[in-house]
């Protein structure tokens, strides 16, 4: 059994914002060679560290994003190493880089310099605004990408005196990385057809802009502006609260409003089951909903009766939730075919029985520490060509000889556990 990209060699120039793309390509089976500067990429010093003990092989950021890759150290300011990179790229299938536009060109190591010697080369460049754009040279972080690109406007609270929020997890970077992987695969397909590679110019700003669902198309189609709401879709018109709490204080998402007569019957039965029918004051409306044969989403704003029925259904869910833990509610609702969800914290996902049964949590061995740790697993189940990212992130220069040939050892490694994150390169 081989993976989909077995035999595909990717040369990745280490960057914060492109790392997730390399991780995904490694998962698909590509041999991803991560190129770092002497002393290591600055992300090796990012907190948190394993056991909170700093060290260049101990950053959990590094572990998370670089798993599945091999690593070499090259000093692109030295002619010898620049030549080694050139050779690596000449023999590669894909280059993945997130350098500031102009940086590689100044060293003669950019796409126009290298693709003439490898016409099958696919070169994916991930930058904030694209390689040639009026805003190309602006400084950025994940936060500014998401603020300028649309998502932040849509995330936050009903109370607009609270600032809008950046969602966690580096989604500005990761969104561009996912698009990069889609693009690389499409380019690989075309290369297999024609023998020719090409340049893929990815913009994080553009990726955020076209990953905002209704935020963009409400404006494009109807010139309407969505407004953020607590824990639910930003919307042109305010919508019902969808958040409630279980008895354990954990949050629940009560989903789309129940709307079929079967849903309403289910709610009345469930109220009976938990002994809350007497407390519930809107039985009348649910019964009317059953008589009407359900209600349509489109009726919610212009039909007073339908609106009352929707509210009654939501109140029933809230009352039921107040009688049990969030998990009991989630299972109880779903077993009754009501689409509700528990709001898990990230670590809770990895211990949930469903995710465990699917084999999603993945153990990765850190033989250097004599320990194994749990990582998130594959995004899909692909039996004939499995997604595999079960190798720990590379140590600094770990694969120098394997990749560059015998006698190529990494430059002197820094040993300082206390080494702070170095300044941004100028």
């Amino acid at each position: 059994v081989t993976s989909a990209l077995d035999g595909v060699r990717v040369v990745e120039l280490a960057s914060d914002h492109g790392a997730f793309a390399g991780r995904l390509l490694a998962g698909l089976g590509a041999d991803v060679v991560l190129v770092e500067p002497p002393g290591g990429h600055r992300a090796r010093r990012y907190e948190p560290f394993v056991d909170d003990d700093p060290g260049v092989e101990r950053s959990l950021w590094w572990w998370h994003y670089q798993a599945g890759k091999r690593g070499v150290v090259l000093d692109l300011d030295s002619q010898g190493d620049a030549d080694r990179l050139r050779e690596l790229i000449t023999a590669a299938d894909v280059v993945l880089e997130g350098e500031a536009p102009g940086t590689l060109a100044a060293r003669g190591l950019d796409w126009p310099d290298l693709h003439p010697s490898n016409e099958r080369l696919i070169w994916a460049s991930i930058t904030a605004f694209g390689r040639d754009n009026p805003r190309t040279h602006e400084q950025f972080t994940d936060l500014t990408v998401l603020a300028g690109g649309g998502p932040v406007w849509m995330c936050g609270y009903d109370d607009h005196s609270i600032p809008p929020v950046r969602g966690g997890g580096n989604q500005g970077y990761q969104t561009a990385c996912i698009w990069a992987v889609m693009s690389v695969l499409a380019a690989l397909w075309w290369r297999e057809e024609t023998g020719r590679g090409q340049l893929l110019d990815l913009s994080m700003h553009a990726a955020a802009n076209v990953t905002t669902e209704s935020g963009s198309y409400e404006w494009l189609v109807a010139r309407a502006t969505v407004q953020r709401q607590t824990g639910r879709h930003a919307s042109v018109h305010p919508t019902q609260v969808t958040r409630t709490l279980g008895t354990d204080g954990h949050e629940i998402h009560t989903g789309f409003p129940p709307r079929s007569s079967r849903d309403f019957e289910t709610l009345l039965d469930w109220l009976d089951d938990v002994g809350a029918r007497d407390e519930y004051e809107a039985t009348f409306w649910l019964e009317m909903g059953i008589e009407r044969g359900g209600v349509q989403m489109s009726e919610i704003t212009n039909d007073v009766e339908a609106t009352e029925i929707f509210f009654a259904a939501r109140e029933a869910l809230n009352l039921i939730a107040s009688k049990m833990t969030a998990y009991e509610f989630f299972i109880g609702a779903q077993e009754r075919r009501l689409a509700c969800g528990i709001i898990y914290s990230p670590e809770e996902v990895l211990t949930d029985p469903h995710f465990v049964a699917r084999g999603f949590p993945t153990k990765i061995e850190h033989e250097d520490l004599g320990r194994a740790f749990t990582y998130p697993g594959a995004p899909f189940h692909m039996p004939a060509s499995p997604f595999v990212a079960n190798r720990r992130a590379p140590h600094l220069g770990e694969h120098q000889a394997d990749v560059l040939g015998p006698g190529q050892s990494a430059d002197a490694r820094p040993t300082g556990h206390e080494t702070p994150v170095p300044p941004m390169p100028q």
Partner: protein
Amino acid sequence: VSGALAGIRVCDFTGQLAGAGATRFLAAMGAQVIRVEDPVKQGRWDILRGTTPYVDDRRGIEFGGAFNNHNIEKLGVTINLRTDEGKQLLRELIAISDVVAENFAAGVLARLGFPYEEQRRIKPDIVYVSNSGFGHRGPYSAYRTWGPIVQAVCGLTFSSGVPDLPAAGWGYSYMDHHGGNFMAIAILAGLLHRRRTGEGQWIDMSCTDAGATLLGPLLLDATVNDRPLRRPGMPHSSHSQSPRMVPHNIYAARGDDEWIAIACRDDREWRALANVVDEPWARDPEYDTLDGRSAKEAVLDAALDQWCSVRDKFETQVLLQDAGVPAAAVQRPEERIEFDPATAAWGLWPMVHHREIGAVRVDGLPVHFSETDWSIAHGAPCLGQHNDFVFGELLGHDAEQIARWREDGVL
């Protein structure tokens, strides 16, 4: 025929955004995507068919703006799978397809008579990709989801918000986008594997699995260091813990509901920011180091918020960018679509023509290919718009037969 994926044919049952987004990408890159819809329900399995937003006062299944956005460049056919002749037509379509893609609830396509085993009988090397909220295996496989439920259960909702307030979550179906995008990755990976080995397969995707790959490095702080994200004072998601950056937040700008994001990646960027601010508080020597700024993050944030609040967000953005400091106005849809030179220069909002709606702009793609760039010019198909082409030209049935099927309720 042009485009990177020209020659690939997809038998497409996807809908909403979580599925339609996958085949949208393939279609924009040149694949022939044939959307199969149910004539009896007028394609309304996809709840976006016919729903808001609209360009004008016209209503009905052809006028939904979101549906048009997600289904550009696809062909549309109708097949009534309740009929034997409809089932036979689908067999014929699968036989000439490379991919079958669907995002029904788990098991629906099998109940319609087309489980993977049947697809494989029809087309031995078919790449079948199913995409549902919890996948086809596991105790929750029958559970139902929409984007917000996926995001809640996979951990994304929780990790967006302010400590001691409810989860802010994602103000849209973020995971519908990436459900579709990961599905596109699965389809293309399956095709590349088939090209090399001749082997098809059933790729089963669970949107909640896919979402849980996106939680970021702090997830390992829980699994490695036993430091759960659910804790008092849980991480503020507008701050940055990995890497640690201070300041790193969203600040009030002048005007109603106006905001600006500012981040300093190192001490030098802080000094540059302090020079622009040029007020006594910013010269506090304790702020010279990251540890110093971290220790007084709330105080620093309050002072910077005050400074920003009397300034226009775009003016602050320019002031700070000129000093080399990452800063970006929180843009409203109108600002980023109509006035942002970056999106205009990119060509990010292409105009398509839809047979009923007319001319309307849609999302473009955030990538440009130097040799085979995307093309987005045609709007979503109307119900059954390409029945004659697909059943006639591709499958070789004559016009009379197609007319008869139409009358008999097969199409």
